[in-house]
């Protein structure tokens, strides 16, 4: 059936992305994994702010940050920007 036979209200909405990309895990892209030295970490949240992939979260209940390896692409920005050098990148 051509679109001639349907008005705009009847045609299926084209190109509607309906699933959250949170279900698309990008964590397996990485070749390096960030490892945090908990003793060095001062919970300044610099890494949380700069991570392009939202892979580091602040967890208020724990009063701590948490890495989510299912999204981390291993870019190393967190390690480079951490003011106390608490993060090192380890080859997987």
């Amino acid at each position, binding site marked *: 059936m051509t679109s001639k036979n349907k008005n705009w209200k009847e045609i299926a909405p084209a*190109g509607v*992305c309906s699933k959250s990309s949170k279900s698309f895990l990008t964590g397996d892209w990485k070749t390096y994994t960030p490892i945090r030295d908990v003793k060095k970490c001062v919970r300044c949240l610099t890494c949380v702010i700069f991570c392009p992939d939202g892979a580091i979260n602040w967890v208020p209940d724990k009063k701590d940050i948490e890495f989510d390896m299912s999204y981390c692409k291993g870019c*190393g*920005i967190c390690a480079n920007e951490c003011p106390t050098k608490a993060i090192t990148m380890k080859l997987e």
Partner: protein
Amino acid sequence: MTTQEWKFTAKEIANKPDLFLPGHRACAGCVPATVLKLVMKATRGPTIVTEATGCMEVVSSIYPYTSWATPWLHTAFETAAANASGIEAALKIMKKKGRISQEHVDVIAIAGDGGTFDIGFQALSGAVERGHDFLFLLYDNEAYMNTGIQRSSGTPHGAATTTSPAGSSVPGKLEYKKPLADIMIAHNMEYVATASPYYWRDLITKVRKGLEVEGPAFLHVFAPCPRGWRSNPAKSIEYSKLAVETCVFPIWEAVNGNYKLSSPSKLLSLAPQKKKPVSDYLKGQGRFRHMFKPENKALLDEVQNITDKRWKQLLKKCNLS
């Protein structure tokens, strides 16, 4: 514009739910992605986003997935500001007819340098002239990255791209970066600013200010792209700091055309000895590698000279010289 500036802590920003979600397909170390995440942290209520074609649009909307936890629209490469115009006009009439309950909905148009400096420029200029109430957010990664690193009018002088390669006959891009934010000021806009994500508080504050303006606002955000710049992904945020420290990308805002340097750049105007040489910023970026060859010494000097010249012009506009 409200006179009271929005104050926030890192924890408040971290606690605020993300509207730009993980699972997007940007390259590792993509600063445009960090920028969008932070921009959306600055929203103050219901917000509709519209994006031009480009890396950030593509990586956040690969069917059937979306990285947007807010209404989002893409139509074409050149139409970010035209889309925003239509959305804003529609909101106005829907509110008038009582078809929406929201008191106010913010509209943000997002585009890359290609979609802003070049192909999207007439739509932007027109939307600003018509006075639509929206924020135009330019993430400037200084080339057409999504199609394979072609030069744009936002690409800096000397940078190697696939259409301005550095070789024996041409040493990278011959032309100079278009002073786009100044051109936007010439549209008599209430709010125009530049920002760099290393200074994330400044970036978030400027987004909020841009949203608060009743009418068009323009924000030019520097956004390193490790893929296109052929640089170490880990250093992407560091380059956004070095660009400011070398005055390659000074940060400032202009309210009703009155230029004012933002703190990190203001500091350099007060302590010029702290201004770093451009080579500190250029080195390590593959797109500038050729500049460090002895035969291209003149090019390196030229880039320093243009940077100094543009910095002096900016100081003058800020009444600081």
